[in-house]
């Protein structure tokens, strides 16, 4: 570990903390549907959309209606992308003549992008046409992100409203977020990326002669525009297979820093926005603090493990940290930080191969996802997932002050507990259940390239990534099979919407409740004690379940490495 490495981490967190309030203020304006300076230009566009679609943005929706509209919208988008992928051979902007994608593969990709997972079994540059990339996938990068933030708004309203029957209007939320938040930032962001050297062209391939005189085909395309939303919307699906490790996606140290910042920017802002909506920004800072504790702990372990390197290689005379699978441009610190950021935030973009991390260094990304990606988390998804844990934390410990537990003025009762448990249980159920299936069936066992505990980690990581809607991979797994395409596709769907529906039901249930004013007898949900309680609850309720699987995967792997028995 070097001081430069730590300096990077400190600067990174420092910039984000400075961004938190401005981003939160902007999000809060959108949450309330207030007029922003951008309305001068984009207001007519927004109204035009509503008129075209026949939507009245002022009509409030109950949680059921909100959920149904959100689901229909996502199913429609999924089918749309599925059709494009299947038919891409016959559609325009396909200069390289890419064939259509097989049903299982197309299902997997469409689900993957709809659910903000962006798990990629394929290599973008050799499988997808520009049309598929731009229309089929980039559209999801915007809309799945907007959906996530809209859902977070819906839950915020549940906490903030009093005796209300509705939690907002899904269409209005989605449109405003896309139009006033994602698009404007992405326009500027893309221009910056182009300036930094990221290609933005409809040319799919360029033939080049290398210095050795060999002929090489270099893939390119409209990368900059997809790259911006890939990060900002915590999507993570790369245009190119190598993702942000590729110089065309992530050319230099500055783009690398900005990409990491953009993964977390909205997530940080949403915590502040939450505090504002419930009338006490300290509530938001408390949540952010708990997230930061978990995040920094993760960064420390990964950076420490990666910098320490592999003792077996040290004995062979290869000194220094673990550089396998890392870009020399970024080095150990920036790669470790990126890996923890991308898995903490449900992004899934990678600038290094997680599979090649040391066992414990790679366990942190895995564990981050298993916790439910509540450490900052995906845009919207992170905060609503976190609030589910907050509900349980308040419930378990809240009774200890001798009152019916309440959080930000809302009593937490049977219905909320039931729904929160339902939403949180889906993660271990699908991750462990599907991993178990894959680790006994021949079709599943055919996937991992490594034997022993590392192979197990690869399977575990794949399902964890899918259910957590992360999308990154321990890439040493052949996942483009019917078995994995199908299983992972279903896992992504369950991991996204089987959390969302109970969460929206909680929003509806909370919105209908009376507000309970805070008194000296109320459970304190700001301050270090609460932060510690949150961290403990997340680790015990969210993390302990996975301990057996981690013991058999990364921990056994690690012990083999330090024991010198790793093949």
């Amino acid at each position: 570990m070097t001081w430069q490495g730590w300096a990077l981490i400190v600067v990174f967190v420092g910039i984000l903390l400075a961004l938190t309030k401005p981003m939160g203020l902007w999000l809060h304006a959108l949450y309330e549907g207030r007029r922003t300076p951008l309305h001068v230009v984009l207001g007519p566009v927004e109204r035009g959309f509503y008129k075209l679609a026949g939507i009245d943005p002022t009509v409030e929706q109950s949680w059921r209606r909100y959920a149904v509209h959100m689901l229909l919208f996502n199913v429609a988008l999924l089918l749309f992308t599925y059709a494009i992928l299947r038919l891409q051979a016959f559609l325009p902007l396909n200069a390289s003549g890419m064939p259509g994608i097989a049903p299982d593969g197309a299902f997997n990709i469409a689900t993957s992008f709809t659910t903000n997972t962006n798990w990629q079994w394929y290599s973008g540059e050799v499988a997808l046409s520009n049309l598929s990339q731009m229309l089929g996938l980039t559209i999801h990068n915007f809309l799945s992100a907007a959906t996530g933030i809209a859902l977070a708004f819906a839950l915020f309203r549940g906490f903030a409203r009093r005796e209300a029957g509705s939690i907002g209007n899904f269409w209005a939320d989605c449109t405003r977020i896309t139009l006033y938040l994602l698009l404007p930032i992405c326009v500027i962001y893309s221009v910056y990326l182009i300036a930094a050297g990221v290609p933005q062209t409809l040319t799919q391939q360029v033939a080049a002669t290398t210095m050795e005189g060999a002929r090489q085909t270099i893939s390119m395309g409209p990368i900059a525009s997809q790259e911006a939303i890939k990060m900002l919307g915590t999507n993570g699906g790369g245009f190119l297979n190598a993702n942000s490790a590729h110089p065309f996606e992530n050319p230099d140290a500055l783009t690398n820093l900005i990409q990491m910042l953009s993964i977390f920017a909205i997530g940080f802002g949403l915590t502040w926005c939450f505090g504002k909506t419930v009338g006490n920004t300290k509530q938001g800072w408390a949540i952010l603090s708990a997230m930061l504790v978990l995040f920094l702990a993760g960064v420390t372990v990964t950076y420490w493990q990666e910098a320490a390197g592999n003792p077996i290689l040290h004995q062979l005379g290869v000194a220094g940290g673990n550089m396998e699978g890392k870009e020399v441009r970024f080095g150990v610190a920036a790669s470790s930080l990126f890996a923890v950021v991308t898995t903490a935030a449900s992004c899934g973009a990678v600038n290094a191969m997680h599979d090649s991390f040391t066992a414990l260094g790679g366990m942190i990304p895995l564990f981050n996802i298993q916790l439910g990606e509540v450490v900052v988390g995906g845009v919207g998804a992170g905060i609503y997932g976190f609030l589910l844990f907050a509900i349980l934390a308040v419930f378990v410990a809240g009774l200890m002050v001798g009152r019916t537990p309440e959080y930000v003025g809302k009593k937490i009762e049977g219905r909320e507990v039931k729904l929160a448990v339902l939403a949180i249980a889906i993660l271990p159920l699908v991750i462990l259940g599907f991993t178990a299936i894959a680790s006994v069936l021949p079709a599943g066992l055919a996937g991992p390239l490594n034997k022993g505990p590392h192979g197990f980690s690869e399977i575990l990581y794949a399902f964890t990534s899918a259910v957590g809607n992360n999308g990154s991979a321990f890439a040493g797994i052949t996942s483009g099979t019917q078995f994995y395409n199908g299983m992972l596709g279903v896992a992504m769907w369950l991991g996204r919407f089987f959390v969302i529906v109970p969460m929206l039901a909680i929003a509806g249930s909370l919105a209908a409740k009376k507000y309970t004013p805070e008194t000296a007898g109320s459970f304190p949900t700001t301050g270090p004690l609460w932060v510690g309680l949150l961290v403990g609850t997340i680790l015990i309720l969210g993390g302990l379940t996975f301990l057996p699987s981690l013991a058999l995967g990364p921990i056994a792997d690690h012990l083999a490495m330090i024991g010198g028995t790793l093949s």
Partner: protein
Amino acid sequence: MARTASLFTADLLLPAAGDSFRKLDPRQLIRNPVMFVTACVAALLTVLLFVGNDTLSLGFKVQLVLWLWLTVLFGTFAEALAEGRGKAQAASLRATKADLTAKRVKGSGTESIAAGALKMGDVVLVETGDLIPADGEVIEGVASVNEAAITGESAPVIREAGGDRSAVTAGTRVISDWVRVRVTVNPGQGFLDRMIALVEGAERQKTPNEIALTILLVGLTIIFLIAVGTIPAFASYAGGAIPIAILAALLITLIPTTIAALLSAIGIAGMDRLVRFNVLAKSGRAVEAAGDIDTLLLDKTGTITVGDRQASEFRAVTGVNVLELAEAALLASLADETPEGRSIVALARARDRFEVTTTELPEGAEVVPFTAQTRISGVKFGATLIQKGAVDSILKANPGIGDTPAAAELRRATDEIARAGMTPLAVAKNGRILGAVALKDVVKAGIRERFGELRRMGIRTVMITGDNPLTAAAIAAEAGVDDFLAQATPEDKLALIRREQACGKLVAMCGDGTNDAPALAQADVGVAMNTGTQAAREAGNMVDLDSDPTKLIEIVGLGKQLLMTRGSLTTFSVANDIAKYFAIIPAMFAVLYPGLSVLNVMGLASPQSAILSAIIFNALIIPALVPLALKGVKYRPIGAGPLLRRNLAIFGLGGVIVPFIGIKAIDMIVTTIGLA
């Protein structure tokens, strides 16, 4: 009623031990899903003892099965013990109820009928020495009644027709005179029946918080079922197999058996504490609500001030000697047997102040009694008329003096008296104003500190009084309540409760009169005084058998204690899991990856002893916590923040650390005596 609170006596423990086996009935067990799962796993392992096929030694498996069954039994035992304590009380209550006969009024006479056959609306005659056969309302007559069977208080109380003292309870004895009582309940639904059902736990329904907690526990159980259920597949990937007995041990230690086993005992014990405190809650929900109270409405008289006002000062108007006033006031009060009247006499005679020596009324004096119409009392002898009463009443009764300078002076004096939190009485002699007597409310000793405590608990206190706002404000300030409602009518009270509730607050109050009934019903916790009317007792959700309104404060504490006990033991139970993982995981996977023994941070002797120690700890912690579950976690009025810090340190941090120590200790014992 028995009020001794000893926990572990043989006459409680033995029946409870028997009951704990009876409670293994699956139909009863399923009410507690976590314990049901535990029992199922124990049953499965019992069967596998005979048909199973694995590498584990039989001795080890037998021990495992034994401890699993013990885990279940400890749970049922905790519940049986809690119920047993109630049953002992119920038995003594039932004895009172047995063999009651009633004299039902029929035509002009009465007929003898079994009390159990009485229906609502029947009228019964109860005479000296009779037990009252059913709950009802006195419609005729006055009697003194010994209610010791219900309240434990042997001093008789008066029950009479009309007013707020008309309710009678089955099982209490008329010790003088007679009353006719209209029965107000049907058989089996009387107060005594409900009380028996409550203390026995038979009618116990799960309270909202208990239901929510059960859901959480079931959820955790499902999550851990998944976590453990997937291990065989993972192990098969690693090329090995884990014996079912070991998986079962991991499952049972991880699921929250500790809190699940104690949950119903905590609830029963909470109700029981209230009963011992002589308060009957009609539902567990009411007890929980008591812990959530934000606003307490307290009647001034009897709660905040001692019941009776005391004369503290004579204020003569200009030109009147204060001694003349004192003597007149004394004469007007000599026949007044109310505490106020007596206090005026005492003040007038007080040594080194006025030293009025008159001790008897003059010959032929005629007492003018207080009536609700005149609101004046006094005395008349010869040509002298002395009047004493509220200022306005005195002025009204003596037309023409209202405009005199003396009247103006009197008004000023009475305003001052009111502002000081005292109640003024005017005294007039033959139509001439002499001055005023100040009656002082005496605020109960220590009540100010109690309100301070309540404030730290986040509870706002509102004093309810019929006094005028000036007096009320002064008393409120002296007593340290947060707010007051002066010149309160029952409608005002109801409106205040609704207003508080509209802001999301939970309100508690107590009352006894029929006109209190709407407010009692509206309040989240309405404590009716046992001496109150039947209507009040029906409207409230608690009844205080001692009729002591101050108890409202303790009731809130008891509600909080119940919730805290539940929360603390849940936290403890969940926090325990960390140590259990560290005990079992390395032991379980030792055959697959021997290197995982580094996770054996406790240094447990062998995989078998590790598993056995974890399961033994998991079982023994239940009886170890039974006393705490039954007694309740101590509540301290120190505010939520410090309380949380304290309990989190004890039950959260303690919950993490204790099992590490406990499992290690058990491991050493198990290894030493060669069990594993």
